[in-house]
């Protein structure tokens, strides 16, 4: 805002004159508070001496305001609504998460959001540039800044609620990434069924338009949902353990019928009596031969949201992890690897590169040059690897491990005894996971063609294999290296997340989504990152030499609790206040305000006398 006639502000000298005319002291009332701790911090010097006189009565306030408005009217203020880019800008962000599929006041929340978005776009200044964004499971810019209202209306009309949970923090990060900072107002249109992670702060320029609050419908939004569904192989490999969590987000107890099926065949059906706000986990043990595609359902469940009445999980790890153990003899490693339910172990005395393997373990054997893939090497240095061996030396220093690295998570190597290890030079690109002083003992190394975890000592020269930490270490290494979990832990992907498919590079594959839509891809690298996980259900990926099923589920307690929690942060959003065209003079508004204030002052005075 600029002033066309700054001299008009000279009228502000009338303010102290009015104050002087009203000065007098007033008796104070006593009021007990729990503690003066926070009140005392307030600087009240000004309050004690000046405010009683300033704020003596309503007439004084009205007169001061009238004088202020008159001064501003004389100064001829001109409103400049243009930003540095030349026009006002606004981001309209729509929450298109699964909870928006439910209804409020008989209308779908997504429809209410679309209506509000149209209003917000319509109320923006004529020359405003507006961006449309979504804050669902995969936050996205639906359309970049534009003045083309027709295009925006068309896009708003086509927006649909997804099957996934909202992701407000990522949506805000996405907008922040555009570098708009806080100069552009963001209007988030949501149903308020949002659970913000701890520590996430909403920016000052974000204004929340809660469409449920706006409708003013006082409804409980009762919902019963499957909020967790996990499938994992038992360690003995004989069966799957299924864990399903059912929740009742209602103020009243509820009775729900829960059914678990595998490969379209019902395994069990039971009725659950759930208290208000209760979450219950149901476990079941299912023999492996009963199926690989698992479905948990709430039957006949008439509630606010239906997408969470079903949860899907798939035993995707049908193909075992193929491990080739090259050793002159290590009974411990052999027995240990054979107990993994999903490991197919081949023991050889030299590396057989004619066989495909997911993980190659070298135990004190010479390694061939130019190895590719996932390799674990105990007491073996790869000829073209990151470690150049020099000589053997006794390990005398205390062992320290690198905290936080996934390979040594929950592993305590500090107490292990290692007789001797090989000294040498390690490529700085390798990560040292454990060392004794300057001597690396365990390291990891990753290039485009090779993933390696190696020790500079032989297992036989240490007590590591006898310690309780060893199975955990091996498990961590296999998880870090192998594309398929060695324990066969399987389940589902969240809506909007990326699913890694280990397909042969260059082979054409077809992915069929739960709606039956097929899409063709020819990935050039493996794994192929599939991102179109927009709907819940079972997906199928097929190629000439490849077939896989995977599941996508909502199973999110925050999303299934569809009651609004994120309230309006401001009653008036930027878009609900029509902004005048740039450069509009405001003196008439101030003059009118001054006049009205004087009339009010007279009315108050007249009623008192």
């Amino acid at each position, binding site marked *: 805002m600029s002033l066309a006639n700054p001299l008009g502000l000279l009228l502000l000298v009338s303010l102290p004159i009015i104050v002087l005319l009203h000065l007098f002291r007033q008796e104070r009332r006593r009021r007990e508070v729990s503690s003066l701790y926070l009140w005392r911090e307030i600087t009240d010097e000004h309050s004690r001496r000046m405010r009683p006189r300033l704020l003596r009565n309503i007439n004084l306030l009205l007169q001061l305001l009238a004088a202020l408005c008159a001064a501003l009217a004389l100064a001829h203020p001109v409103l400049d609504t243009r930003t540095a880019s030349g026009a006002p800008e606004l981001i309209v962000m729509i929450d298109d998460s699964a909870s928006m599929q439910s209804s409020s006041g008989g209308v779908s929340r997504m429809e209410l959001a679309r209506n509000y978005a149209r209003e917000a776009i319509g109320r923006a200044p004529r020359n405003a540039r507006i961006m449309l964004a979504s804050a669902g499971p995969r936050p996205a810019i639906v359309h970049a800044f534009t003045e083309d209202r027709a295009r925006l209306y068309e896009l708003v009309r086509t927006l649909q609620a997804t099957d996934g949970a909202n992701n407000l923090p990522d949506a805000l990060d996405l907008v922040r990434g555009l570098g708009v900072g806080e100069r552009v107002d963001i209007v988030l249109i949501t149903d308020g069924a949002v659970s913000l992670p701890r520590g996430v702060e909403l920016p000052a320029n974000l204004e929340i338009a809660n469409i449920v609050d706006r409708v003013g419908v006082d409804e409980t939004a009762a919902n019963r949902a499957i909020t967790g569904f996990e499938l994992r192989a038992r360690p003995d490999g004989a069966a799957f*353990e299924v864990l399903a969590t059912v929740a009742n987000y209602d103020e009243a107890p509820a009775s729900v019928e829960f059914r678990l099926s595998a490969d379209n065949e019902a395994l069990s059906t039971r009725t659950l009596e759930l208290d208000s706000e209760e979450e219950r986990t149901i476990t079941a043990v299912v023999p492996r031969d009963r199926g690989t595609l698992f479905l948990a359902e709430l039957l006949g469940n008439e509630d606010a949201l239906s997408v969470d009445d079903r949860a899907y999980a798939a035993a995707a790890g049908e193909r075992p992890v193929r491990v080739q153990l090259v050793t002159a003899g290590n009974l411990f490693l052999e027995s240990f690897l054979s107990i993994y339910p999903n490991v197919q172990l081949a023991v050889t005395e030299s590396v057989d590169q004619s066989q495909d393997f997911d993980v190659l373990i070298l135990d004190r054997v010479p390694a061939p040059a130019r190895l590719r893939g996932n390799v674990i090497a105990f007491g073996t240095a790869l000829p073209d690897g990151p470690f150049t061996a020099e000589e053997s030396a006794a390990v005398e220093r205390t062992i320290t491990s690198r905290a936080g690295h996934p390979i040594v998570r929950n592993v305590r190597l500090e107490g292990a005894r290692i007789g001797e290890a090989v000294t040498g030079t390690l490529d700085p690109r390798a990560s040292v996971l454990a060392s004794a002083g300057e001597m690396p003992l365990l390291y990891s190394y990753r290039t485009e063609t090779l993933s390696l975890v190696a020790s500079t000592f032989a297992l036989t020269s240490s007590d590591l294999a006898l310690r309780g930490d060893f199975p955990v270490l091996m498990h961590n290494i296999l998880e870090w290296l192998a594309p398929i979990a060695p324990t066969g832990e399987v389940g589902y992907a969240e809506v909007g997340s990326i699913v890694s498919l280990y397909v042969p590079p260059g082979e054409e594959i077809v992915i069929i989504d739960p709606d039956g839509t097929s899409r063709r891809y020819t990935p050039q690298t493996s794994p192929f990152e599939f991102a179109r996980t927009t709907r819940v259900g079972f997906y199928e990926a097929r190629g000439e030499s490849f077939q896989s099923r995977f599941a996508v589920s909502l199973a999110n307690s925050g999303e299934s609790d569809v009651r609004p929690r994120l309230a309006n942060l401001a009653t008036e959003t930027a878009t609900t206040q029509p902004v005048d065209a740039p450069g509009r003079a405001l003196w008439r508004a101030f003059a009118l305000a001054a006049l009205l204030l004087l009339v009010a002052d007279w009315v108050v005075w007249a009623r008192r006398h």
Partner: protein
Amino acid sequence: MAAPLLDEEFLRKLEKLSLLARKVRSGPSRGENISINRGASLEFSDYRLYQPGDDFRYLDWNIYSRLNRLFVKVFTAEENLTVHILIDTSRSMSFGNPSKLSYGGRLAAALGYLAVNNLDRVGVSAFAEGVEHSLPPVRRTSHAFTIFDYIASLKPSGRTDFSRTLRDYSLRTRRAGLAILITDLLDPGGYEEGLRALLYRRFDIMLIQVMDEDELEPRFKGPLRLIDGETEEETELNVEPDTVTEYQNRLAGFFGRIEEFCLDHDIEYLRTSTRIPFEDVVFSYLRRGVFVR
């Protein structure tokens, strides 16, 4: 006869919940038949047969390779959770209607009942300038009624000295465990030192701050002489809308610093107002904050 602290129906609902200490929360059990004797300290105690839902990390692979049967390791901490409930009974807690002390007392009674029901060892202490009275930790189901009687007898008095109280408490307590603090935290001396003293003694802390609605949104205005309920100190202030705004800003800053401190020090923190129905706090807010399951 005074109205009971918690009615029977409420107690029945409580029996379905269990109190979560951080260690227990990260523990191995996750199935339907969760044992009450669970925990994850590093003090190994025993083995038991694997149950569906147990965490694979606690499987003993060595035993499996020898016996071909699955066993999980059990730790001693799971048998020994001690819950220390500390209620602030300083005069500032008498503020409001219902008073913060009455509200906090019911909260303490509910959490105490929950812990007793889980066969945890539960002690309750009232504090202001120091620990005024204590009910030593006991593991016995009938202890719940002793706790209720004790809480019902609490009367507000004295000034708060949070840091000294918690420091003394941490020093004189032999068995650390889960400390549930119910207080308004309105202590000019600060709360950090006291909480650090508990953390240093390896307490797992749940901090529940109880505020009255009048403290959050003061409804008085005009030229006033404000009197401190604890110290009876007075100060003159003209409470105008902007003064209230400034107060609320400072209050928000105060809350923000507490949240930040708790986040940094891994302390579970819940702020509640006496206006929020007590049952909602127990069944909804405490659950969302992962205090109880």
